[in-house]
């Protein structure tokens, strides 16, 4: 029930791709305000505003992480998009960590006229990694079809494909998708070797 909600099934639209707009947009805004503060230090509150944009972006990122993780666990392990999804997840964790540090570093200098070099560099790195990660997330949808039409699916997540062979280093006999216990029964009965790839 909660899983269905986090996957956006009642809405017919996944929640994660909706929520991620906020961290992506706000982190870019924050960097822009940093850069403007370097060029026009006489404009008041730019450093403070970059901080606020980042703070709300981080809150958005943490909220988006919850349905994102649920979406991730819904991809079967042998799906061609799983590795992309793992890279997307890892990069996002790094980005949020970097922005956490970034926020901490700048929190003591909110009245400064220019954002100092350290936080600006952290933001640049953060945006670079986030762009890659966002691109991977988009590839998951537009290339691998992850969460496309998922709300129409009545059955649970498909099982991994299991591969049966006649023994060590032998030809594959059969590859199929079924509950693991059924495959184990076949393995026992036929003395075949079961390898889940």
């Amino acid at each position: 029930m909660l899983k269905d909600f986090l996957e956006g099934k009642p809405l017919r639209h996944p929640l994660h791709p909706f929520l991620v707009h906020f961290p992506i947009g706000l982190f870019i805004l924050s960097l822009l305000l940093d850069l403007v503060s370097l060029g026009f230090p006489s404009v008041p509150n730019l450093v403070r505003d970059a901080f606020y944009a980042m703070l709300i972006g981080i809150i958005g990122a943490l909220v988006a992480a919850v349905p994102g993780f649920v979406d991730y666990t819904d991809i079967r392990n042998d799906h061609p998009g799983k590795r992309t999804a793992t890279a997307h997840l890892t990069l996002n964790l790094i980005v949020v960590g970097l922005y956490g540090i970034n926020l901490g570093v700048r929190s003591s200098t909110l009245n400064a006229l220019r954002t100092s070099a350290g936080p600006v560099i952290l933001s640049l790195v953060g945006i670079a990694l986030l762009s890659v990660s966002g691109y991977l997330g988009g590839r998951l949808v537009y290339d691998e079809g992850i969460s496309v039409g998922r709300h129409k699916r009545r059955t649970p997540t498909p099982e991994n494909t299991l591969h049966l062979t006649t023994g060590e280093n032998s030809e594959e006999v059969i590859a199929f998708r079924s509950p693991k216990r059924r495959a184990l029964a076949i393995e026992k009965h036929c003395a075949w070797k079961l390898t889940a790839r």
Partner: protein
Amino acid sequence: MQWLLDFLKGKWLRHPLHPILVHVPMAMWPSALIFDLLSRWNGNAMVRLSFYAIIFGLVTSLLAVPTGVVDWSGIKKEKPAWKIGLYHMILNLVAALLFAINLGLRVHTFREDAFVAGAPLVLSIIGTALLIGSAYLGGLMVYDYGISVARMSKKKWRGIAKAGGANLPAE
């Protein structure tokens, strides 16, 4: 001309461009509403932040228009997604217009105002509501109707289906 269409469709990136570009206005305008509400506590810094967010959103939304129109023109008129796309476009135009008016109302006062109230706040609320409705329709086009999904990877998926012995329709 074809190169321009391919560029706007994001073929060079192997990812549609419109959903990338819309992240900015989609984040900026609802955030502007949040900043408006926070301005009660944080004062002029938030008023300014909201102003910057609206500008950044407007500029980027202009960039997103041609990519969206090209994506929409690729949908067959008899498909249900065509009509959704039309509503999506109209709602976006109205939301962008409301935020442009909103910006105009703030442009002379955002430097001094201590908080956002009255017409600009109301416009932020209405604009955000329309934008979220519109974004939902855009999301439905992708996640319910599959618009621009597998547009660049058709060959790959046909190959996989063929290897699996699927009876594929002619291209």
